[in-house]
């Protein structure tokens, strides 16, 4: 029996290496429902955070106006004590949910990302702390640079 099982493991390993089997994709959590939501309300419902209280403890540093929507730098800091996660959404994107980060012991609730924005829109950030949810928004204008050539 051992012999057979080891043979099977080797085969699976080989398939894995050949990239035919999806290795960890199925295992790692990725909230497909939330990331496929077409509105931020729907995305937040799928994330289990239907409502969030406005809070000045969330700082969003981002340019007021972006020369191009392909790369919009967004830096988020949560000063709310006990923050365990930060969610970033761009309201007017086809799929508003951009990213979700969970922070455990050893990490500060801070992240800087480059996001894509289809057009001028509000960026909404949700922070979870002590079982409650808080939010802040900031509008970023997106323009067309260059000669359009």
């Amino acid at each position, binding site marked *: 029996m051992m012999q057979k099982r080891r043979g099977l493991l080797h085969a699976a390993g080989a398939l894995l290496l050949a*990239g035919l089997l*999806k*290795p*960890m*994709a199925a295992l*790692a*959590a*990725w*909230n497909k429902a939330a*990331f496929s939501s077409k509105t931020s309300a729907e995305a937040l419902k799928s994330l289990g955070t239907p409502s969030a209280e406005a809070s000045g403890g969330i700082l969003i540093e981002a340019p007021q106006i972006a020369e191009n929507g*392909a*790369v*919009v730098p967004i*830096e988020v800091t949560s000063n709310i004590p006990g923050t365990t996660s930060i969610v970033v959404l*761009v309201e007017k*994107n*086809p*799929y508003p*949910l*951009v*990213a*979700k*980060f*969970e*922070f*455990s*012991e*050893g*990490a*500060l609730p*801070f*992240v*800087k*990302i*480059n*996001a*894509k924005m289809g057009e001028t829109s509000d960026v909404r950030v949700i922070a979870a702390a002590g079982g409650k949810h808080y939010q802040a928004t900031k509008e970023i204008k997106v323009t067309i640079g260059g000669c359009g050539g």
Partner: protein
Amino acid sequence: MAGPMKMRATLAGGYTDVRVLMTHPMTTEQQTKGQPHFIQNLTVKVNGKTVIEGEISQAVSRNPVFSFRLKGGAKGDQIEVSWLDNKGDTNKTETAVA
């Protein structure tokens, strides 16, 4: 085959600043007519312990760059950042805190 990554981890006034660059097309449904290719999961580890887990999407820019901040930290701490995309490709990079 996943493209190169680059990471820098430096002590900065009470926290460790981690900046990681990843080569990835991060294509969207619209660009690929339904066959998007983007990183879904990010994991940041310090000395083997996971401290940050990220779920990201096709709305993150191509060749993603992330900055994170780790509590305290000391020179020599081992920082590892790895990613997994929606096609099962993975890559990771390690560095010691400078």
